[in-house]
């Protein structure tokens, strides 16, 4: 998947990139099972062609994009982002895609559109985890409009210079680098513009643990995991102390102003 280096501020961290094998064999994608090697083992069955993404809700131009057309909607950029999982591990991943704002501008949201909802495919024939009672399918995520419009918010089609492997959310996914990984919904089939805060999957499953915002924040702990530190996969050896987690995953300079005046302990 050809791409040019991104010029967006903060989009090219100089940190060591995680090994491809680690990034593609260790992640959460509950549609394929709850263990972190399940996506790698089970996602072969996912069919990514043909694929369409429906744009609906409060927009002037609702549309149904074939993945081929969506790919060409913006210039593909390479962006190297830190990824911080809510479970306390992190990676550095070179994604390929373009700012979600390009698509948002194209479909012209109406004045009443305050939030964007992202819906993942839920096909029990190709996704063995769908049908388990762990989450309420389909997987739904959401962003506030200003978050969706932020240049760092990426609509991603590839990683490591290739098209996305199935287990990482092929053929198109969201990447929001300053939020915990589960906010970055995978294998998108629907993007819906709404006037109210979307009911997101993990928030529905455990509201006291997973808030709507879920910004990376070392000062607000998860009840089961301290969020102050993280283990960088493939880099922090067994006996190395875990590294400190940065506010907004190190993207405070770029996104801090989105949350000016908000109590982030309450809006976790």
């Amino acid at each position, binding site marked *: 998947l050809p791409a040019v280096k991104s010029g967006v501020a903060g989009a090219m961290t100089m940190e060591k990139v995680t090994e491809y094998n680690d990034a593609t064999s260790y992640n959460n994608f509950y549609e394929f099972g709850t263990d*972190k090697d399940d996506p790698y083992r089970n996602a072969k069955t996912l069919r990514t062609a043909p694929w369409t993404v429906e744009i609906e809700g409060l927009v002037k131009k609702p549309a149904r994009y074939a993945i081929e057309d969506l790919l060409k909607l913006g210039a593909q950029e390479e962006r190297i982002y830190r990824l911080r999982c809510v479970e306390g591990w992190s990676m550095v991943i070179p994604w390929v895609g373009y700012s979600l704002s390009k698509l948002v501008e194209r479909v012209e949201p109406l004045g009443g559109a305050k939030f964007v909802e992202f819906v993942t495919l839920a096909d029990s024939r190709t996704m063995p985890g769908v049908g388990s009672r762990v989450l309420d399918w389909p997987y739904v995520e959401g962003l506030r409009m200003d978050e969706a419009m932020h240049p760092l918010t990426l609509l991603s089609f590839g990683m490591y210079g290739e098209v996305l492997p199935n287990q990482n959310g092929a053929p198109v996914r969201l990447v929001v680098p300053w939020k915990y990984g589960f906010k970055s919904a995978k294998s998108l089939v629907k993007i819906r513009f709404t006037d109210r805060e979307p009911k997101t999957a993990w928030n529905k499953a455990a509201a006291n643990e997973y808030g709507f915002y879920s910004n990376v924040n070392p000062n607000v702990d998860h*009840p089961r995991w301290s969020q102050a530190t993280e283990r960088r*996969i493939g880099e922090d050896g*067994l006996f*190395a102390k875990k590294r400190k987690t940065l506010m907004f995953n190190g993207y405070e300079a770029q996104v801090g102003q989105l949350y000016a005046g908000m109590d982030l302990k309450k809006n976790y």
Partner: protein
Amino acid sequence: MPAGRAFMHPLAKPALFVLALLPLAWLVWGAAADKLGANPAEYLERSLGDWTLRFLCLTLAVTPLRVITGTAALARFRRMLGLFVYFYAALHLLAYAWFDMGFDLAEIAKDIPKRPFILVGFLAFVLLTPLAATSFNRAVKALGARRWQALHRLVYLVAGLAILHFFWMRAGKNDFAEVAVYAAILALLLGWRLVQAVRKRRGPGAAAARRA
């Protein structure tokens, strides 16, 4: 009985000892050879927890199996299995303190009360400690069989805490399938004891009266 005779073989205990060390050997080899996946620290911590729970189930299965199958020789292995519960629990705690907390005792002291599932797991380990410490023959004699047995009934509480620890850990992922398996096994093993105790209290006379 052939199984009983095999259990009485002088090599039976050493064989069990070696078997019980195999999980640890695999983990040490896997860590050294980088075979434990992308997050070896997590793999080690979870595996050591899994093996603690498995040895706990095995230990608690000894008496029911001995009684139901009438294989008295099984009792020979109970102490060793129980000590392996403690052994794997200690390694599980060590892995947490080392890999997760970098042996920062101040951080650990803050972490234990802050997170209920860690508190419960830690409590289970603390309660196992006097059992491990009184496992040798002289301790049994010094305490007296009755008091020794009362003390060692703490293991039932430990089983409950261990399941709670596992349940709370998995609650964050909403994934209780494995927890349910261990909970069912432990419930069966403890339930059997409960039934035995009730029968004993009613006494053989009561049982005979029921049959009549």
